[in-house]
């Protein structure tokens, strides 16, 4: 392991400066762009032909769009976990992870907003949400809180970035478009004590404020379900259940991003094994917490097995969704707990695999929260067509959903191309502090 305090400021700057895409990077971006275009084509078909091109019918009127929306909302919680909670609790090793988690939060919440419009039958009436909003509707609470969280997350990304902008201006090609962008964003930053003081104050304010807003966004999203009287959703636990799940997928997402950036940008000296070790432990704790809520959500209703809820529960335990359900519980929660509980399991590669399992499991978990419930109404329709009773997304839905996921990754990728994914100024300062303490 490289001693970080021994690295010079210039070396840190050159290590952490955004780099041009290599061959792998270009291929990666091309794939993401192609997936986004496929998604756009799917959406064009949906716009022109209507929601009939989806697999959604009168029973499953919420499909993978809503599952995807909940997933995006969930993973966005990582911003408040790493940046705000760690900052307020003065966790020293957080620095290389803050910007990664914040850009994940911003891109995820941005696509959460987009995907909800995709789910609308009449997207041209989107403005009606604001023009004719009823404060009685949980959907409006979600719109308000998502907008607030998005703005706060962007500010949370921007304020700490200010100190890096002069470094970027200095080290970028004079007169280039990139330099112009940096100058537009932060040419006014002179690094004076007064500017630092204001920035610190702003970051502190956001750190405090973003936590209740982040909890609110997940709680309100859970209320979209819990305020509806349906099997599997009629729960007073739902807010906490969603928040704990969001923390887990967020932490898993950060491990995955840490590993990828570490590999792609050769950041072994900054994102160290220690970070994987700590994040691994956090994932274990969060997975246990989420597992606890899952036990509450499924085992208690299963113990009672009320007639009206039987169809839903049995579809998960032994029926149509059982393979997916048990895969998510075992691969998305139990396996990461078992593997990451051991120090050898918290090595970068293993932790990365566990992170992938957590994130993929979390996506399918959202599908399991939405779809089986929709297919188990308390009052089934009479003489309903057989295809109403099952839901399988059409290729248009898959294309749009995968396109949105690719879009979120594209934002993160482009951000990492334009800005240092590990804060340069903060890392230099940290190194100097360590040196001073050693002296």
């Amino acid at each position, binding site marked *: 392991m490289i001693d970080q305090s021994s690295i010079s400021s210039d070396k840190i700057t050159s290590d952490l400066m955004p780099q041009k895409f290599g061959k792998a990077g270009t291929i990666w971006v091309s794939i993401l762009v192609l997936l986004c275009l496929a998604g756009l084509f799917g959406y064009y078909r949906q716009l022109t032909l209507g929601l009939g091109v989806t697999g959604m019918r009168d029973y499953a009127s919420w499909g993978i769009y809503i599952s995807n929306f909940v997933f995006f909302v969930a993973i966005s919680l990582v911003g408040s976990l790493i940046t705000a909670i760690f900052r307020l609790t003065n966790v020293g090793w957080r620095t290389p992870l803050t910007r990664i988690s914040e850009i994940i939060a911003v891109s995820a919440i941005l696509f959460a907003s987009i995907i909800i419009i995709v789910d609308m039958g009449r997207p041209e009436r989107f403005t009606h949400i604001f023009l004719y909003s009823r404060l*009685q509707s949980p959907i409006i609470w979600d719109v308000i809180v998502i907008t607030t969280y998005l703005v706060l997350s962007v500010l949370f990304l921007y304020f700490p970035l200010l100190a890096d902008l002069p470094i970027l201006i200095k080290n970028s090609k004079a007169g280039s478009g990139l330099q112009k962008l940096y100058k537009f964003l932060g040419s006014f930053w002179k690094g*004076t004590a*007064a500017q630092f003081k204001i920035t610190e104050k702003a970051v502190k304010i956001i750190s405090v404020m973003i936590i209740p807003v982040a909890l609110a966004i997940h709680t309100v999203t859970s209320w979209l379900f819990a305020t509806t009287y349906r099997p599997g959703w009629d729960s007073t636990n739902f807010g906490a259940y969603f928040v704990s799940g969001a923390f887990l997928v967020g932490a898993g997402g950060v491990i995955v991003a840490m590993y990828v950036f570490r590999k792609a940008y050769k950041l072994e000296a900054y994102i160290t094994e220690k970070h994987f070790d700590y994040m691994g432990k956090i994932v274990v704790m969060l997975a246990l917490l989420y597992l606890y809520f899952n036990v509450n959500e499924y085992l208690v209703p299963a113990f009672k097995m009320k007639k009206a809820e039987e169809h839903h529960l049995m579809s998960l335990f032994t029926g149509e969704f059982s393979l997916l359900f048990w895969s998510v519980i075992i691969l998305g929660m139990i396996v990461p707990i078992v593997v990451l509980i051991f120090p050898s399991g918290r090595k970068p590669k293993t932790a990365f695999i566990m992170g992938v399992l957590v994130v993929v499991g979390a996506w399918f978990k959202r599908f399991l929260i939405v779809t089986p419930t929709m297919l188990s109404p308390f009052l089934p329709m009479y003489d309903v067509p057989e295809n109403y009773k099952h839901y399988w997304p059409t290729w248009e839905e898959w294309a749009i959903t995968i396109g949105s996921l690719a879009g979120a990754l594209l934002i993160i990728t482009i951000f990492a191309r334009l800005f240092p994914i590990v804060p340069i100024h903060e890392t230099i300062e940290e190194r100097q502090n360590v040196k001073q303490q050693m002296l």
Partner: protein
Amino acid sequence: MRRFTSSWLCFLFTCVLVIPTQAQDEKDKNAIKVDLAYYQLDNALPILVASAKTKNGKKFEPVDSVDIYLYFNEESTVGFIGKIRTNDKGIGKLSLPERFRSDWATLPSSTFIATITGNERFKDASTEIEIAKAKIELTAEEKDSVRIITAKVLAFQDSSWIVVPETEIKLVVRRLLSDIKVGEDDSFTTDDDGVASTEFNLTIPGDGDGNIFIGAKIDDNDTYGNLVTTKVMKWGAPLERDDSFEARTLWATRDKTPLWLLIFPNLIIASVWGIIFYLLYLITRIIKLGKTNESA
């Protein structure tokens, strides 16, 4: 002569070809059953309800879109009441036209005929019912806080109304979807004076003024058909209008949001966005500081 013979042969040939085909068609048609019921509401001109059904296996099923011809007293142009077409429940209704009022009012009994003929799917069918003219006189009174409903059944014989004893009659409160019985018994039998009565002890909601419909009815009587007579009485509890939709509730329109839901969330939203605007202000301060520093 030859020409006549040739025409005659042509006619015979056509008959030989067509008549068995038609006979075969008639044979292929399904049997249909037609029923007729007589309804007389508040002693007005009766309503005739005809129904058509056919046997499918062991079960009778209603038949829709079948034309049924109704006749009064005789199956002729003179007695033709009208044509009805059955609905999806196999039922069609028709009120006795005004032109038959004098005959109906003066005759002690009338015959009603329903026929199905010339239907493409079904064989011809017919039914008839003979109904003796009758009426129910309904009175309701309150004496010493006791409410009593009295119904008297009268039949029209020899140009006068005579009482009808020993006839089953129901005393009810008429509601939108069904009737509520008055008293403990489902039905009553008229006495020698043709009268049946019971106390009214129900507490049920009426309209805004407490009006309810009380009624006396004879159901499916072989002689008199179905007779119903109603009377409006202020014996119900006045209905208080549920105007909660006008109030500030969670299910009301946006301009009727509950005050607590307007005040507290808006306070939170204003506070959070106030801080966000303050943060934006801090950015402008940082910009200003930068520019000041630059010029210095």
